[in-house]
């Protein structure tokens, strides 16, 4: 029977020859991933032991924990939570990766994004492992099932195939592409379904760009999003993958619930206006709105291509006096590479405040806005209060837009700066 990637992965994970949408299955996650956060991991640890009598989790090699929120700790009870996480990991034989970056990115770097694997987390942004052909599901509280048993009960979701065609224009980044998908398809268009993403735009796109798009699947309502592995994927995962699996590809005649084709050739940079990620608009309609702070980072953006784009805009310039530009590379590995490339120096010289990786900027735990302030942000969400006061506003955009807005103190178009940078490079060679 022809199958989608999701169906093949879930068939293998449930020990069946094939599955179809609507089938109730018991699947064995290859990986169980979590970061520590109050009300989540502390509760899972407690319930696993006290409610289910499980003193030691089965097959601890499936598990990986990250400490990426509340980093660095700003209160004793935050550090207490981290201590508990470290102790649990040690007692269970489960690795705890701390201060290495945002877990969804570090998971990929460490090889948990194995093509064809089935991974679970409580947080839906784990869907970005789909960039590597991993079926990565944010099960919310349901991840508890993987702590107390080796399986998880699932209903096989239908798949929506999204084909991105055309060619991206200069200054348009993966971030714009995702929010354009939300605009075209709708914020709940893929509710309880999986998106299989393909097409020449994806073929041409970097691994980082694919991570950006897949990681935001939840804002289409999707359970997760996957891209079939190609040479770039296999090159990335070679030597990293934690387990050996045959990569999985969709059958050419697989049955999709829907096929959506989006031509991105005329796509311009976007801005997602408050109060929700459902509100994609054209950047050009919002130029000139005064902004006070900028955030370049998060599990969605903050990778090398984002830092390079920001550096191209900011090189040799100074951000507007009084503007707060926070640049937070997504992982230590990315930060080190950015330093090697001279990007960190360039951003610092332009006036950026650079932080080691942490999730804390994305939800206003630090760099918190006051009433009436506005941010341009590559964070995941623009809910009022997400980055401080409920009377502050967040405009989501790509990294180059954050950088250009930092120069001008208002929402700005980065393309003139990028064109200048490109011509400077051209004249030098």
């Amino acid at each position, binding site marked *: 029977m022809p199958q989608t990637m999701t169906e093949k992965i879930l068939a293998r994970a449930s020990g069946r020859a094939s599955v179809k949408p609507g089938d*109730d299955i*018991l699947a064995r996650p290859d990986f169980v991933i979590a970061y520590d*956060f*109050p*009300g989540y991991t502390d509760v899972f640890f407690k*319930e696993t032991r006290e*409610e*289910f009598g499980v003193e030691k989790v089965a097959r601890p090699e499936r598990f990986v924990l990250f400490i990426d929120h509340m980093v660095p700790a700003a209160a004793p009870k935050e550090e207490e939570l981290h201590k508990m996480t470290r102790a649990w990991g040690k007692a269970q034989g489960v690795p705890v990766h701390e201060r290495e970056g945002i877990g969804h990115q570090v998971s990929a770097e460490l090889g948990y994004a194995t093509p064809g694997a089935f991974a679970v987390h409580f947080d*839906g942004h784990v869907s970005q492992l789909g960039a590597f052909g991993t079926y990565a599901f*944010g*099960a*919310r*509280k*349901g991840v*508890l*099932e993987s702590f*107390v*048993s080796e399986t998880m*009960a699932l*209903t096989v979701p239908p798949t929506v195939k999204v084909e991105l065609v055309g060619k991206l224009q200069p200054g348009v980044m993966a971030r714009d592409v995702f929010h354009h998908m939300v605009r075209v398809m709708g*914020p*709940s268009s893929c*509710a*309880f379904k999986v998106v299989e993403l393909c097409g020449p735009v994806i073929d041409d796109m970097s691994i980082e760009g694919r991570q950006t798009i897949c990681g935001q699947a*939840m*804002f289409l*309502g*999707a*359970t997760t999003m996957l891209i079939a592995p190609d040479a770039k994927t296999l090159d990335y995962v070679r030597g990293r993958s934690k387990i050996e699996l045959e990569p999985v590809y969709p059958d050419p005649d697989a049955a999709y619930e829907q096929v959506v084709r989006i031509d991105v050739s005329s796509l311009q940079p976007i801005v997602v206006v408050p*109060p*929700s*990620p*459902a509100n994609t608009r054209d950047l050009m309609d919002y130029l000139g709105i005064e902004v006070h702070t900028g955030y370049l980072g998060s599990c969605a953006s903050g990778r090398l291509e984002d830092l390079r784009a920001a550096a191209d805009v900011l090189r040799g310039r100074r951000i507007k006096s009084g503007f707060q530009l926070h640049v937070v590379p997504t992982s230590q590995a990315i930060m080190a590479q950015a330093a090697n490339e001279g990007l960190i120096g360039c951003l610092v010289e332009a006036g950026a405040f650079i932080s080691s990786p942490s999730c804390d900027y994305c*939800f*206003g735990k630090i760099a*918190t806005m006051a009433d009436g302030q506005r941010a341009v942000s590559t964070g*995941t*969400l623009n*809910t*009022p*209060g*997400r980055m*401080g006061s*409920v009377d502050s506003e967040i405009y989501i955009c790509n990294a180059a837009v954050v950088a250009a807005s930092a120069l001008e103190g208002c929402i700005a178009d980065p393309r003139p700066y990028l064109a200048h940078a490109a011509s400077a490079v051209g004249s030098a060679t």
Partner: protein
Amino acid sequence: MSLRNLQGRVAWIFEEDDFDIDLIVGVRNIKITDLNELVAVTMTDYDPGFAAAVMKGDLLVGGKNFGYGHPHYPAMRAMRHLGITGVIAESFSPGFFRGEISMGFPLATCPGIRAAVARWDEVQVDWAKGLVINLRTGHALPLQPLSSAERGTLEAGGLVPYLKTRLTSEARPVGSS
């Protein structure tokens, strides 16, 4: 076991589509785990008198894609503590839906509900009949059925008791009763 019907007043109507429930307590408060602390910040941005006005059994009504965003647990934990027994919405965002069903918190998907009720109307969710009934107007709307796992989770009172029962029955040797 059958699912107990819900009956109570509509304590609040979240009119917006794509409503982010973190706003109920304020995003800055999502790390709070103490219920009394949480309740003190619940709905204060909407109606400072909310906590005092709510009675046990009351319900919330939402729009389309209710729970969009990052649906953390504190908002509904606080709502349950105040006596709210369920949410009826035009539709739910999947992450929110999965998360709250796991908590044993009833959610009824009922297209048309937003226009069919006013604040403080008495409504009933009849799971067996598959209807949401406005007891003030007599108007009834169909609700979308739950899957067997969702229903089982709600009947058991949440994922933890549901899993306990399920894992015990799976562990039983084939052929035993």
